[in-house]
């Protein structure tokens, strides 16, 4: 086998390998969601974050606009502090409401942002003033049972 045949075979091998890498990046992974653009970080405080994880998506109207960068506990107020990395392409007004939601019945938890109407926007380091904590199943059930017990048998609701 002469030199140019080697070159051809190796060229085909390298091209195939790079094609496989691209296939993995574009078709298996999601390069479009690989956010390399600029972003800003805002802070949201919750009484209870439930099962929220770092890197969970931040969505607005169901569209991913950022990710949870870090989660910590404020030692004085005992609130969970979630820092959200939001793509600079999106602006949210200062009265935005941040809610912890669950995708599907058993799915992962994410943060939903609902923009308000004030024409002033959240910037780097700002804090989301209105938040709504995660629904904790045990609390919901105990509340339900408590309400049920409070009802007297003949009473209609």
């Amino acid at each position, binding site marked *: 086998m002469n*030199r140019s045949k*080697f070159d051809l075979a*190796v060229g085909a091998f390298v091209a195939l390998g790079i094609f496989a*890498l691209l296939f993995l990046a574009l078709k298996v992974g999601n390069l479009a969601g*690989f956010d390399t653009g600029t972003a800003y970080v805002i802070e949201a405080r919750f009484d209870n974050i439930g099962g929220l994880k*770092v890197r969970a998506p931040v969505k607005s109207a169901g569209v991913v606009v950022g990710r949870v960068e870090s989660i910590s506990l404020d030692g004085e107020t005992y609130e969970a502090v979630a820092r959200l990395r939001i793509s600079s392409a999106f602006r949210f007004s200062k009265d935005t409401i941040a809610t912890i939601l669950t995708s599907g019945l058993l799915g992962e938890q994410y943060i939903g942002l609902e923009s308000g109407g004030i024409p002033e926007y959240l910037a780097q380091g700002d804090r989301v003033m209105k938040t709504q904590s995660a629904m904790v199943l045990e609390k919901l059930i105990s509340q339900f049972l408590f309400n049920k017990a409070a009802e007297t048998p003949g009473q209609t609701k």
Partner: protein
Amino acid sequence: MKADPIELLTSLGHAVTSRLDRLGLAARFSVAVFRVLGAVFLRFGLIIRELYFSGVRSLSIVIVSGLFVGMVLAVQGYEVLQRYGSTEALGVIVALSLVRELGPVVTALLFAGRASSAVTAEIGLMRATDQLAAMDMMAVDPLARVIAPRFLAAIFSVPLLAALFSAAGVCGAWIIGVKLIGIDDGAFWSQMQASVDVRIDIINGVLKSIVFGIAVGLISVFEGYFAVPTAEGVSTATTRTVVTSSLAVLLLDLVLTVMMFRGLN
């Protein structure tokens, strides 16, 4: 026969020092190889030739293995997932296990068996037939002429082969999951894309396979270069290449996995 405690201690000491000695030899050899690595790029034809023998000739085994591994993962994964009614997550399971673990690890093991053993045997035979000494006499550095191109070929080949393995595996899982079992095509791909992260999963997988390529490549050329120059010595060296490479890959995989994925959750 009654064992003499002094003799036992001596043999233990000898075992330890001879292994340390070999480790030191390997370390000095690695440094020497890395030192001549840059010069090899001037003679790129040498690398092309080794890429052909190590990389191109391993293509068939890697792609076929990837296809089968992906198919088996799909069958097994489907069996468990259908109990929970979430068969659409099949793509996620298959893609993550392939890209994170099986792709780099199994490819490195296959490469050790298919290509590294051949490299060790070739270099060992060169040593046994005094070809390396002859090169030295002609003022040709055998490290730069023989060792470095084969080592570089392993570093280039393993990541490319691992990517091919993973891609073939995903296609195999698609054939079983979507074409034969009948999972929804759109859900299969979209759930996969939503869960596989380019940086955390794919780039980490590629990094792993580069490290494995370095390890497997170094072990194969080292064992060949220092093979005992007899027929038996070459066969022992070949066996050792496969055994040491496999163990090194699995150990490195544990270390790298802990380093890469520990802080995620």
